[in-house]
């Protein structure tokens, strides 16, 4: 009896282990189960025109699945929710889909490779010769979702509110002195000093959108400018309205049938954004067809697997985000530009882009991302050349290296650790010992605050608020912008660069401006206060039946224009 029961036990255990192993292999080996197109929607659900709960047989398909087969509803998955719906406060790099679909700015930037200014709520604009006054002619016949008319008063109100609250991305708009509503259809912005990037700043997702003054005033409490109300409600002019928001669960948008842009015969009635923190779950839902679009998937394997799946499309675009190794230029031997240049010549840019990031990035060839204002190509390019690096080190007095450097990567960004390990091997050949260290974001913020405690080197990421890198150049490379108030994490100071940047701030002639930035970029690139590694791509996944998806460089993956999309 004992022998038999032991046998049974072993059999059962083996079965479990086998099941476990099979499940490990399965996702890659599973034959394509989804047909090329979704089958005709099973008519157990009512069309989504009504908002009444659906009376349907409780199969797992309708329990959250049936909606994906509804051609008018789009199910979007994303990992993180946003924390507030108030566009003057919101500065979260996640969950911000509603920002551009429910609210609109005066001007928008459009384009997948480059940003082009396009009229939105403003039809046309004029800039005064001294660069201080911007006059906008506003679009007529636009209404807010609450029915009240859009006019110059609303524009003035929205910007006054943004500037008064001093939250979110207000730092991008402090150049504004005052706003004047000349008449219903004309509004003037008067700046404190000429600011060449002002129009681009007005295209940003965060801040410069127009909210309904009537709605705010009706819901104001104790002079809070409607903050408490607008954090959970919406009062814009855009093609979609917020129907409901369950924090960390879902955000539902419904179509604004009266949108001034009008609608063709193909559109989406409802957008349901679900917050799914686990990337594997997102993958399973897309494969199965229970979701239509997934944004923010981080697992390279899952994305690669989905790219091979029939019925699923993975779109890839270069984003305005860069990864760069920030060097503390106050700490010897890093205070010597030759040493920094040697480091720039020792980094394997191609391996980082194609090997570690799997080809989903391009190597950088300047101080900023490509495709944005402020991108200028220097006269040379750093490439991995250990001979040259050694030569520079010798000139700097370190022929055999002989020192160690700290390389900090932020917790959760494993890619940065891998890049560090790759670099470590190369630096060893130069006699430099790279000490790879992990740090949580918060700890790094604290350490970065002063040049003594800031790490020698740190792998950082930078994303632009709008398609203009001149802002990055100013906050990072101008010597007046040391932390904690600025982002010159390298404590870099070059007086000539400072002068060029100061001039550029107030220059109004576009040709002269380009010249100034070209010169500044050349100098900064040569000084190498950073090693500019890669510009990363964004990948979005959607089912093949989803049409009309367009990537917008200026708005990252969050800036999906749902009004251009429909399902076959």
């Amino acid at each position: 009896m004992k022998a038999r029961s032991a046998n049974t036990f072993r059999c059962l255990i083996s079965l479990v282990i086998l099941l476990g192993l099979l499940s490990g292999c399965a996702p890659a080996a599973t034959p394509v189960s989804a047909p090329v197109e979704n089958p005709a929607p099973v008519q157990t659900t009512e069309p989504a025109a009504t908002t009444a709960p659906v009376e349907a047989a409780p199969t797992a398909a309708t329990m959250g699945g049936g909606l994906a087969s509804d051609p008018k509803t789009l199910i979007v998955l994303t990992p993180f929710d946003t924390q507030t719906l108030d566009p003057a406060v919101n500065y979260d790099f996640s969950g911000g889909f509603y920002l551009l679909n429910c609210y609109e700015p005066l001007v928008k930037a459009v384009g997948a490779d480059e940003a082009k200014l396009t009229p939105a709520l403003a039809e046309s604009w004029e800039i005064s010769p001294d660069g201080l006054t911007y006059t906008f002619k506003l679009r007529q016949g636009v209404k807010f979702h609450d029915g009240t008319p859009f006019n110059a008063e609303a524009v003035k109100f929205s910007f006054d509110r943004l500037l008064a609250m001093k939250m979110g991305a207000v730092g991008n708009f402090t150049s504004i002195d005052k706003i004047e509503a000349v008449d219903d259809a004309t509004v003037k912005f008067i700046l404190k000093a000429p600011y060449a990037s002002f129009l681009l700043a007005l295209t940003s997702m965060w801040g410069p959108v127009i909210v309904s003054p009537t709605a705010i005033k009706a819901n104001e409490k104790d002079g809070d400018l409607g903050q408490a109300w607008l954090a959970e409600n919406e009062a814009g002019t855009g093609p979609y309205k917020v129907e409901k928001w369950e924090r960390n669960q879902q955000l539902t948008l419904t179509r604004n049938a009266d949108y001034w842009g009008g609608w063709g015969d193909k559109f989406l009635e409802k957008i349901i954004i679900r917050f799914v923190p686990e990337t594997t779950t997102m993958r399973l839902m897309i494969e199965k067809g229970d979701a239509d679009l997934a944004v923010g998937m981080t697992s390279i394997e899952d994305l690669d697997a989905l790219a091979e799946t029939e019925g699923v499309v993975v779109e890839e675009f270069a984003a305005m985000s860069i990864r760069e190794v920030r060097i503390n230029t106050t700490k010897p031997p890093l205070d010597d530009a030759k040493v920094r240049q040697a480091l720039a010549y020792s980094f394997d840019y191609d391996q980082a882009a194609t090997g570690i990031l799997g080809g989903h990035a391009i190597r950088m060839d300047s101080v900023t991302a490509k495709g944005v204002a402020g991108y200028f190509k220097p006269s040379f390019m750093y490439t991995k050349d250990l001979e040259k690096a050694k030569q520079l080190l010798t000139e700097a007095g370190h022929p055999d290296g002989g020192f160690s450097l700290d390389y900090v990567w932020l917790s959760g960004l494993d890619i940065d650790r891998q890049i560090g390990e790759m670099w470590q091997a190369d630096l060893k050949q130069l006699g430099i010992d790279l000490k790879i260290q992990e740090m949580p974001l918060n700890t790094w913020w604290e350490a970065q605050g002063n040049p003594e405690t800031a790490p020698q080197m740190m792998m950082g990421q930078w994303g632009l608020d709008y398609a203009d890198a001149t802002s990055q150049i100013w906050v990072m490379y101008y010597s007046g912008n040391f932390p904690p108030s600025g982002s010159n994490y390298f404590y870099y100071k070059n007086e000539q660069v400072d002068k060029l940047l100061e001039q550029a701030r107030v220059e109004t002639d576009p040709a002269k401006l380009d010249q100034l930035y070209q010169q500044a970029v050349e100098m900064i690139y040569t000084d190498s206060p950073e090693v500019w590694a890669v510009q990363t791509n964004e990948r979005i996944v959607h089912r093949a039946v989803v049409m009309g998806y367009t990537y917008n460089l200026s708005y990252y993956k969050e800036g999906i224009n749902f009004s251009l999309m429909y399902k076959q």
Partner: protein
Amino acid sequence: MIFVLLGVSLLTFGISHVIPSDPARQAAGPHATTEQVEVLKKKFGFDRPLPEQYWIYMTGLLRGDLGFSLYSRRPVIEDIKAYFPATIELTTAAMMICLLLGIPLGVLSAVYKDRLLDQISRVVCIGGVGLPIFWLALLFQLVLYRWLNWLPAGGRIAPDIAKPLTITGLYIIDSLVTGNWIALRSSSYYIIMPAITLAFASVAWVARITRSSMLDTLGQDYIRTARGKGLRERQVIYVHALRNALIPAVTMIGLQTGALLSGAFLVEIIFSWPGIGFYTINSIMAMDFNAIMTTTLLVAVVYTVTNLIVDILYVAIDPRISYT
């Protein structure tokens, strides 16, 4: 119990403040101005000395003011009200599974020792104790959702069904109370997989303890006497043996509350369950002190209260035990 809570609060406060960090800066964002950061710092009292910050927090607690969350920009109590019921619902469901499955499984394994049922239960228990919970979760998701299409991948309720009127925040209870059968059906469906995943390990522990405790008890003299007296086997097992065997099982269940609460954090992420787990993880990443203190204390409270109930249950189960 008060001392336990005080100790927990001091420890949490100490640890979270010892780690060098700048939560105000992080909350304001990388592109924020120094001004904005200073305003936030003042608002949250980060410029005050540590003991004062602790005092402010604890006295606020007594008043019912749990502080303001840097991360979600609203009072922590609002966040707790929004997310805690979801975790309670999940943990309670898991606890029920643990009771309704674990104890009978243990009893039957003891009664049918070495037979097929016992073998299966041994395998299940080893699995439950040994397999990591997130792996189990992903496995269930793959098999039950992706392959078999029996259960949904995540969430609390179907996206097109409105949640029931909020009375307790527990969807199943709220829909029962308001007679909302559609919501009841949907939320029951959605809770099955996360609850089973969460309960798996606890069922294993409870079943094993019950089994060994039952075996112990069944070997006692008075059981032989009862059988000798001619009592039906069922009576022997359930009336005489089980009650005595239950004490270790009940202890284990009390201890499992802690395991269930911590397991809930992982299960919530995988099944997109909007509970306190995910909220706490984000708060820790953001060094949101008020949120961290509150959630830690909350978990400590739940744990101590549950074990208090266990202690009381002892008296009910075994009249020989008393606390006088």
